[in-house]
Structure formats: structure tokens, C-alpha cells
């Protein structure tokens, strides 16, 4: 099996692109990734596009770009695994490259949802719950995955809400230095987070990821070709994926067990320990999930993740810089592209291209995605060649 590397990346500033059709966004982003690495049209022999499950105007969004750009491919399809779709697609591209079914593959996602109001979007998104037995009660993703989870975590671990609010404060501070982030200003304080509008008690607007549009493209190549292009390859060192036996959340609201499992699998496959990972871009649509991610990575006994955040452990100059690109709460959350943004954020750090947010001397990083926000996770360990 061949090793597989990231050779090119491209992404649009996260924003609202309600007026622009998906294929225009995809084309513009693909061109950015092609220019990043210098691949030619004839180099690309595979393309996986993330299936957008809502507001799809143009059907067959995988073959449509192939037709629009006149690309013949050995592998071309749409994949869906919720918010973990990009990780799932990157993984399948890696399988194809590792076994030689393709040599250079494009993974692309366009998230296009801001043309729909939040109240209408919630009607659609609620159907990720049990359609017959849960949805009838009026439950929502923010209500369960954000609010009920925070409520239980605060109660069970006797954590001050201020420590969880620190996640949002730090994300905004990082996003203020990231040119592709949607929410860069104003900087916010813990008091402002906890006095922002309540979405679902006890959580506030600034503890939640927003609804955004975005487009991101990653180009991968097998090791036989990975060094032919413009930038030094960033290797996929390990990959882990784990899914709880839950359609939405795990039974224990204070944990993300599948995240812990996926991290351990990715580290085992990559031959590293979780402590060897120098920074991470984690899929956490609610502030509390960044805290639980720290618990699950084993940095502290369960319930201590919030204290770590308050102490600066996850600050970009701390021991474990977390979501340095601004996180989902401030960089923005184009759901079906978010994991690609996490992945690209990690690649840029490892290449030394992260500008004002650059972490000094990093060689091993992690990027994750999650479906339904909590019950299944995809984890990539990336490495710059030493």
C-alpha cells in the first residue's frame, strides 16, 4: 500500500454565498487548489464530492462539475456522512490512492445553506433525530447537542459556565487573525458570551457555531507522485473513524466516546501517541464540545477539560493549541465543508503558511469531523516530512 499525501488545498472565505450557484463556488475553489500545487487537468483521475443533502438545485453534483470542467475520471462520486463527510471522503480517496486505483484525487465540498432561514433550516435539520419518536417533541440540534449536553456537563462536573465560555472567547481571538474566518470582530469577553442571546437554556448565541456557506478543496496524491508538485507533501500519517450505536448522541451526554475511540485508532495507525499530536483542529459546533474533546484525549481526568481551557492549555501559545484557525464558533461553520476547513487549517500550519496564526516548529497535527455533532467522528493525523 502506498502512503498518501496532501499536495494542494484551496478554500473560500467563510461567508454567505446565497446568490452564487454551487458549481461556480466549486470551480473557483478547485482553481485555488490547482494553483496551490500545480497539478494539470490530466493529472487528476479521481474526484469525490460531498453530498449536500439540502437545497440542492443542481442534481448530480459530482458528474455535473465533471461535465462542466470536462474531466474524465477513474473514480467519481458523491459521499455523505453528515459533518464527517469530508473525512469519510478523504479516507476513501486515500484507499483508492494507496492501492493504485487512482494517482491524484480531488475531494471537494460546497456548503450552501444561508439562503434558507434558520427557522426553516431547523425544520429540515431536526429530521436527523428519530423522525417518529423524538421529533414530535420539538427537539433541536442546539437544544440537545448544545444545551442538554452543557446542562449535564455543568451539573455533573460542577464546572463554572465561565470556563466553557472561554472557548468562544479564545476562538474569536484566533479568528480575528484568520483572513478566511467569517466572525473576526469584535473581540468578545466571557461576560459578553454569557450575556448574549439565549438560544436554548443554558447556552447562548456565542457558544454556538453559526450557519455559514463555504467551499473547500483538497488534492491528494500517492507517494509515487506526491513530490512532483509545487509544495512539500503533507502526509496522512493515521486515520481513525468510529461511530457510536446512536443516531444522534451517545447515551452519556458528558462524553464524546466515539471521538476518543477515533483519536486512539488514528494514533495507533499513525504510530504516535495522543500526546505526540502538537495541535488540533477539532469539529466542535458548541463550545462545550471542545472541552469534552480535551477530556476524551486524556489530557486530564474527565471533567477537567474546562479548567484546562481556563488555564490557557489550548491557547495558541499554550501546551496544546486547539482550533487555532478560529474554531466553528468564530471561523464559521459551513457544515458539510467544515472538516475540510479543519484539514486545510492543519495543512497550512504544517507547511508554515498560517500567517499570524503560525505555530512555531509544528510537525504533527490533527483534524477532525463529526456527524450529528457527536456520535461519530473522523480523525486525521497529518505530518510534515522530517
Amino acid at each position: 500500500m502506498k502512503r498518501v499525501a496532501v499536495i494542494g488545498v484551496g478554500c473560500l472565505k467563510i461567508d454567505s454565498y446565497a446568490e452564487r450557484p454551487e458549481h461556480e463556488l466549486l470551480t473557483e475553489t478547485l482553481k485555488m487548489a490547482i494553483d496551490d500545487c500545480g497539478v494539470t487537468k490530466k493529472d487528476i483521475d479521481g474526484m469525490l464530492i460531498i453530498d449536500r443533502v439540502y437545497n440542492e438545485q443542481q442534481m448530480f453534483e459530482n458528474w455535473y462539475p465533471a461535465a462542466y470542467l470536462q474531466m474524465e475520471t477513474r473514480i467519481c462520486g458523491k459521499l455523505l456522512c453528515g459533518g464527517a463527510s469530508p473525512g469519510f471522503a478523504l479516507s476513501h480517496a486515500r484507499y483508492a490512492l494507496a492501492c493504485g486505483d487512482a494517482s491524484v484525487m480531488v475531494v471537494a465540498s460546497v456548503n450552501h445553506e444561508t439562503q434558507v432561514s434558520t427557522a426553516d433550516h431547523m425544520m429540515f435539520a431536526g429530521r436527523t433525530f428519530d423522525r417518529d419518536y423524538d421529533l414530535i417533541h420539538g427537539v433541536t440540534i442546539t437544544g440537545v447537542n448544545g444545551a442538554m449536553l452543557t446542562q449535564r456537563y455543568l451539573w455533573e462536573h460542577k464546572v463554572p459556565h465561565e470556563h466553557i465560555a472561554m472557548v468562544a472567547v479564545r476562538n474569536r481571538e484566533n479568528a480575528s487573525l484568520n483572513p478566511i474566518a467569517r466572525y473576526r470582530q469584535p473581540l468578545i469577553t466571557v461576560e459578553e458570551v454569557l450575556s448574549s442571546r439565549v438560544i436554548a437554556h443554558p447556552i447562548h448565541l456565542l457558544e454556538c457555531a453559526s450557519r455559514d456557506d463555504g467551499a473547500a478543496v483538497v488534492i491528494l496524491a500517492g507517494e509515487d507522485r506526491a513530490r512532483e508538485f509545487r509544495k512539500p507533501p503533507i502526509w496522512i500519517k493515521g486515520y481513525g473513524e468510529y461511530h457510536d450505536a446512536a443516531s444522534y448522541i451517545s447515551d452519556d451526554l458528558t462524553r464524546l466516546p466515539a471521538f476518543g475511540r477515533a483519536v486512539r485508532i488514528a494514533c495507533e495507525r499513525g504510530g504516535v501517541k495522543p500526546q505526540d499530536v502538537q495541535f488540533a483542529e477539532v469539529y466542535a459546533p458548541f463550545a462545550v464540545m471542545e472541552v469534552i474533546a480535551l477530556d476524551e484525549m486524556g489530557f486530564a481526568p474527565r471533567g477537567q477539560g474546562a479548567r484546562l481551557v481556563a488555564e490557557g492549555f489550548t491557547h495558541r501559545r499554550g501546551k496544546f493549541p486547539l482550533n487555532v484557525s478560529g474554531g466553528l464558533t468564530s471561523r464559521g461553520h459551513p457544515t458539510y465543508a467544515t472538516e475540510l476547513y479543519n484539514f486545510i487549517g492543519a495543512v497550512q500550519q504544517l507547511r508554515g503558511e498560517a500567517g499570524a496564526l503560525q505555530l512555531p516548529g509544528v510537525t504533527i497535527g490533527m483534524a477532525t469531523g463529526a456527524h450529528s455533532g457527536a456520535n461519530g467522528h473522523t480523525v486525521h493525523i497529518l505530518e510534515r516530512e522530517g
Partner: protein
Amino acid sequence: MSEEVRAYLPRITQFNRPFWEGLKEKVFRTTRCQDCQAVSFPPRSLCPECFSDRYEWTRLSGEATLYSFTKHEIVPRAYIKEAPYITAMVDLSEGPRLLCRIKNAAYEDLIPGMSLEIGFGKLTEEIATFYFEPTPPTPTLPLEGGEQGRG
């Protein structure tokens, strides 16, 4: 302007009809595996513990404990008229953990671990639903005659 957006209604089938018919009669029931005795919710035709398809319907006590909860301020279009409202994750005394609405309680009075009991209402004229509410305080002295049965 736009037509009214309606809440999703459950899809009642030959398999799950005993559950939805039960609610109309204020009976809360689910399926139990005849091989391993596991009680599951929602009702299932295949036991999630042992994959046996030998199931039977069993009546639940309607008693539960509050696990976590929220009061929704921002809600899906179909629920705007009802907001704010409280939903919760509760543990049935028989084991399963489920999502539900909480009624007849103020958000400020709720605390994880408190006792709840089931109540019944309507989604439409034809379809009944259930919710949970705080269990009334137990009288300190036993009542004469001992008829304290709840639903």
C-alpha cells in the same frame, strides 16, 4: 405569505400501532424481547441487545428520572407558536433513556435526578402523544384506603 409549516407527525404502521393506540388510552408501552427480556425504546421489532425478533408489547410504569433538559428559545418554524418550551432527556424506570417534552414545570425548578411521571396529550385529533412532568410530592402520611394509583 407562505403556507403554514406543520410539525412532522409520526408515521403509524402495523408494527408500531400498539404504541400510538396505547397513548390514546393513556397507556405507555414499548417492546420487550422474549428471549433476553431487554426492554427497548422506541419500540423495535428486532431486539437491539440480541437481535431476536421474538418481541412482545409491555406496559411501562410511566415513572422516570430527569437526566438533562433545556428551554428552547429559538425553534423550528412549526414550533414558533409554542416557544418557549422545555424538552428533556429522561431515564425510564425500566431503563431506556429518551427525549420528551416537559410540561407543568418551570425551567428554574428543574434539576437533574428529579422524579418525573408521564402525562398524555394530543398531537392532532387522531394522534396522541406523551410528555413528562414532575412527580407530585408524596404525602408524609399514608392516605386512608391506600388508593394512590396513578394512571
